[in-house]
């Protein structure tokens, strides 16, 4: 058997159905073998970055299904591999399992600056979980199996296999044998510790029982370990309110009475004030990112911190813990939930305080939503998202891009479906939405998927409309067009005296773009068109583009200025 056959045999054994790839000189042999076998559905992006985000979308959306799949993207050597970089770095920041296979020039010419040669392992090493370059055909199958193990064990992450062309085309010797069933990767340094220690769980339970003002944090680890329902049960049993990180959203219904919504820079007043006043934080599967904490020396000063996290290097990294539990979130919650010592307290006073804080922005937001338009009569993003939420009853899959509209989508969609929100958080990669939505739709074909972008991000990977056209993927596309890079504009408004440097932006005629890709399109400028347009997109069988002309002066509030503490939270819009 040849290297190419072994790669595909291993992918098939790992349950791979889709391959997102772009061919080229150094990866051709694998594509050729794929064409012969016809075992996989091949999806061709129009730029390799698209392939990496499609693979992410597939991995993330399928995680909570009965048949989780790992997204696989392929690219050729040199520029092909380099175009994957952003998507891989993004997956690394957001702990998304993914396997990237890149062709490499033949071993005989590696490091001679051969045509389309880049040092892929050298480039990828710091931005992914593991890199491999098998140098013999005998290593190929084992490498792919190990790559899947590493990508999906412990804290998830992307893995890169750089495969020289000669290794692909050579055959293994007659004595070659490999049994995937008995294969165990030899990784003496791979640390995986899923079960919590009894002692620390006891300490944590005691602290929770004692606490008067506790807050629970729901991070990405809750989604990754499929522990949303259990977290909800735990919150209900203990009467502890839950605040979400960006990636923790959709782990439990966001309108649950104990839900505080999102925390951090653009978090809700109720979440951030609860954290500020808490005496105990119980954090599940998150990493205290700077967008979550703000100024560290002012962060949750009065609170003890219980941190449950699968990756030990995240413990005590940004926030010192009182009790560190290095374990899988699901298993820890399972143990805690059934601990006989766990006390159910009413915590009436604390929950009243939390409820009072909900009211701070309630009226202002209600007013804005009721009006639906800004000062200049243009649509408000938050009202569009809110309408979408109402019409879809909060049940659809939302894939935002990055920026102001993303925070609106995080705040104003009423997430009801487990694992239904896929955003680029850590890396904040503009342009991720359209390709990621394609991957999500392939993973969950029976659910409706919305790709929501600003005019900036949409233009970054707009070429993937062709993939949508070619594959007939039913992704509903919203472009919230305000003619600016909205999030940067907001910072310019608030902190740069309103100098809009590099943020005003021209868009093409999206109607003509839609026409070029043979997709139905509607432009929405008036409030009374919004509902009908959303319903038209829903009723149409297939992809649909909605362009909303939005108010550029809309801001997402509350906001904690970068580097500021929770006390610096801007709650209402400064009067101009």
């Amino acid at each position, binding site marked *: 058997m040849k290297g190419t056959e072994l790669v595909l045999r291993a992918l098939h054994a790992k349950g791979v159905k889709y391959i997102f790839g772009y061919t080229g000189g150094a990866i051709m042999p694998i594509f050729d073998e794929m064409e012969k076998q016809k075992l996989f559905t091949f999806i061709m992006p129009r730029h390799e970055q698209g392939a990496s985000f499609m693979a992410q979308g597939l991995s993330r959306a399928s995680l909570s299904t009965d048949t989780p799949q790992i997204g696989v993207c392929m690219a050729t050597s040199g520029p092909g591999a380099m175009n994957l970089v952003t998507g891989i770095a993004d997956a690394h920041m957001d702990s998304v399992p993914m396997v990237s296979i890149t062709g490499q020039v033949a071993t005989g010419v590696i490091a001679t600056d051969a045509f389309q040669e880049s040092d892929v*392992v*050298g480039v990828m*090493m*710091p931005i992914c979980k*593991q*890199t491999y370059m098998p140098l013999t055909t005998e290593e190929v199958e084992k490498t792919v199996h190990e790559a899947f193990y*590493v990508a999906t064990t412990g804290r998830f992450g992307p893995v890169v296999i750089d495969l020289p062309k000669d290794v692909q085309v050579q055959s293994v010797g007659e004595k070659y044998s490999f049994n995937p069933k008995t294969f165990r990767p030899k*990784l*003496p*340094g*791979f*640390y995986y510790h899923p079960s919590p220690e009894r002692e620390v769980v006891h300490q944590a339970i005691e602290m929770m029982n004692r606490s008067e003002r506790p807050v629970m944090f729901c991070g990405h680890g809750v989604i990754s370990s499929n522990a949303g329902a259990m977290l909800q049960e735990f919150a209900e049993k203990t009467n502890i309110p839950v605040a979400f990180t960006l990636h923790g959203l959709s782990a439990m219904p966001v309108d649950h009475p104990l839900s505080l919504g999102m925390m951090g820079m653009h978090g809700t007043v109720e979440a951030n004030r609860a954290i500020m006043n808490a005496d105990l934080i119980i954090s599940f599967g998150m990493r205290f990112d700077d967008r979550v904490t703000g100024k560290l020396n002012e962060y949750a000063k009065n609170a003890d911190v219980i941190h449950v996290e699968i*990756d*030990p*290097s995240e*413990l*005590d*990294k940004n926030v*010192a813990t009182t009790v560190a539990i290095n374990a899988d979130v699901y298993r820890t919650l399972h143990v805690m939930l059934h601990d006989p010592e766990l006390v159910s307290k009413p915590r009436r006073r604390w929950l009243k305080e939390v409820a009072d804080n909900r009211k701070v922005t309630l009226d202002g937001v209600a007013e804005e939503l009721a009006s639906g338009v800004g000062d200049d009569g243009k649509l408000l993003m938050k009202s569009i998202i809110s309408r979408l939420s109402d019409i879809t009853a909060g049940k659809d899959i939302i894939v935002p891009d990055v920026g102001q509209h993303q925070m609106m989508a995080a705040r104003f969609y009423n997430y009801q479906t487990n694992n239904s929100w896929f955003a680029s958080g850590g890396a904040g990669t503009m342009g991720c939405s359209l390709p990621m939505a394609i991957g999500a739709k392939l993973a969950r074909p029976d659910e409706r998927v919305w790709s929501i972008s600003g005019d900036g991000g949409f233009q970054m990977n707009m070429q993937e409309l062709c993939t949508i056209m070619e594959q007939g993927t039913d992704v509903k596309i919203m472009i919230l067009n305000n003619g600016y890079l909205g999030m940067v504009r907001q910072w310019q408004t608030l902190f740069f005296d309103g100098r809009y440097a590099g943020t005003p932006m021209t868009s093409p005629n999206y109607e003509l773009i839609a026409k070029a890709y043979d997709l139905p399109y509607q432009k929405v400028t008036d409030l009374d068109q919004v509902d009908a347009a959303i319903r038209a997109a829903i009723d149409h069988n297939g992809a649909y583009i909605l362009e909303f002309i939005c108010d550029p002066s809309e801001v997402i509030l509350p906001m904690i200025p970068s580097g500021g503490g929770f006390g610096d939270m801007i709650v209402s819009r400064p009067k101009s």
Partner: protein
Amino acid sequence: MTVKKMKRRAILAFVQDKPGTLNKISMMIRRKMYNVDTLTVCKAKAAGVSRMTITLREDDETKVLQVIRQLEKFTEVIRAKELDREQSYWREVAIIKFELEKKAFEKLQKKYQVEILDAQPHDIYIVQIAGPTERIDSFLKDVGSEHFIEIARTGVTAMDK
């Protein structure tokens, strides 16, 4: 700008002996914005395992702990820990070529008992000296920088008591 010299730390790591491991470790240390003071690698007792001693400067305990946890996160790193200065031996070897009058050298030799590798005419010596960093530093100071021709030092290797 004067930079206060921070406390020297030694980190001992047992790592898989394969290409890219050193690269990965040094890249992470660079990312954490440390300048590696010394780094030595040798084969460990177990087959396929290397023993790496890294010294860098840091006063903050939690930051050192972060480096160690990040090291341990790599699949290639089997074990990493900090070596307590009081509870371990830190040693290095230097080969030094210098020009010194015979009398002065003999005086030095009484104090340090270095191994003479070569004594050339015109008062040129090549010597080998081993021991704690301070001993080598002290020898070099006594020779005097105006007499140096070339200095080669291995960097620190260390072992627990």
